[in-house]
């Protein structure tokens, strides 16, 4: 089996969410001497890009995304020990969490999956995260982006407080918000740099904002 077929196999098995198949292709990639970084980016990440596009078009839904993510992580588990240090680019860092009082984390988890597939390093703070933890994590990690999620109108009010603190303490950090009750209009009112209506859009918006900031 040639390199092209293996990379396509990794890509397609990721889209299908087929864990056994993707692991088998990952092992073949190693056996054939394919660079592990290339296998991840051209195989699994390419597959997740397709998943992301299909989700935006309403052709795939969350159950499929979660299965694709399982497949991607399984393949990465096989490939990671073979990554060569010099081939790994310094990834952009995003601190991600669901704000205080809110435990609804499906949206945040989807953003995490899509961001990781797109090559970001995600520092996942989890759910019901106090404001100070966002600010501390951004400063400690020198994060490029801080992503905040909320599903409730009562919890989203923490966002402007976090954004305001970040503007003071880490002014270069890009702030992004998302979640059920949020909108472009509300994101602007909260002083956020970006708003994403879903996980697929989050990656696109993050990349655009990084280019705008001059650090992509």
């Amino acid at each position, binding site marked *: 089996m040639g390199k092209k077929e293996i990379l396509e196999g990794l890509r397609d098995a990721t889209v299908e969410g087929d864990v056994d198949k993707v692991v088998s292709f990952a092992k073949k990639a190693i056996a054939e001497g394919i660079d592990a970084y290339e296998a991840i980016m051209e195989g699994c990440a390419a597959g997740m890009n397709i998943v992301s596009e299909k989700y935006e078009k309403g052709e795939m839904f969350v159950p499929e995304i979660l*299965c694709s993510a399982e497949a991607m992580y399984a393949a990465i588990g096989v490939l990671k020990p073979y990554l060569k240090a010099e081939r790994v680019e310094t990834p952009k860092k995003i601190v991600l969490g669901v704000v205080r*009082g809110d435990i609804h984390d499906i949206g945040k*988890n989807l953003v995490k999956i899509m961001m990781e597939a797109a090559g970001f390093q995600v520092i996942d703070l989890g759910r019901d995260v106090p404001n100070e933890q966002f600010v501390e994590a951004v400063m400690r990690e020198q994060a490029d982006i801080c992503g905040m999620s909320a599903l409730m109108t*009562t919890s*989203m009010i923490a966002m402007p407080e976090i954004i305001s603190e970040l503007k003071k303490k880490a002014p270069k950090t890009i702030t992004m918000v998302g979640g059920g009750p949020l909108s472009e209009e509300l994101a602007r009112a909260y002083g956020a740099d970006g708003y994403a209506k879903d996980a697929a859009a989050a990656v696109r918006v993050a990349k655009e904002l990084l280019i705008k900031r001059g650090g992509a």
Partner: protein
Amino acid sequence: MIDRMKPGERLAAVLMGQKPDRVPVIPFILGFAAKIVGVPIGDLYTDPKKSFRAQLLCAEMYGYDSSPMYAYASFGAWEFGGKVGFPYEPGQSAPYVIEEPVKSEEDVDKLEVPDPKTAGSIPIMMEIARQCYAIGLPAVFQCGEVLTTAANIAGPGRLLVWMKRKPELVHKLNKKIEEFFVACAEYFVSTFGADKCMAFGGGPVESNKLISPNQFGEFVYPYMLRVHRKVLEMGVQIILEHPCADQNKNLPWYRKLREECGWKGKYIWVFGPETPLENQISLFGDHDVIMGNVDPPSFQFKSFEEILLLCKDNIERGMKNPSGYILGVGCEMPPYAIPINVYAMIKASREYGSYI
């Protein structure tokens, strides 16, 4: 205009297919009522007396047309043996799941259908229903939705993956939930009589933000149809159905549900703001009441004048429904809504929603 009907009369007129004095207003208020009467939001979900009083006084103060009820989106986890927390901390607005009763595939088999008389929040729901019944208001019970309840019981991430990898487990779980909802309906109907009851169903996991219309057809529809058929067969006449968030792709299923139930009873549809009123009217307008779906977060950050305009637009479009219209909100009124914005709904009804 001056009101010529009382809230109960206005709503009854719409449900009987008659014209009221003006458009009724049901602002889907729960947590907001707690803020109005000065008790913690958590009390709305733990103390039936305080909950009833807060909801009743809030409705009386504003003059809107809904009656107290008890329902929450995380329903199911506590009832089936898990643990929930109540909204007493900053940022919280409703009960939330602390521990799901189903954590493994084996747990699905072990899961027992609880007795509605003692299960989780049902005694609180029953007590509020009793107080409503005592003053002639409908006794509301929750009977859906199945998949949202399954997600609360098994955890949403686990359930959504099972839908792809272990669909038989999801069906097994849904069957138990269906059985529980029917038992709940029987409990309320036998206590108050079917004509005094109103069923409520709704949930966000059915939304097309999460699942496809085909998945709705496989994992939601058959259970929903059986529950609704049984509830209607018991003689319950009114079902308040809230397909939460964006469910535009599921609309054909909801229409099919009504057709397969023979358009029995009267449904009050409360779709999210994502679903245009015109689409709802074309699907359900010959039989059912449409409740308007003004964007909920707007009540928290927009001005009184802006809300008034949003309500005016909703009223002008909704009044075209031949089977009746209620001005409402596309999901729960934000507990931190600006108080005057709730009044904007009443004012809009009086100014733009007159039938006289």
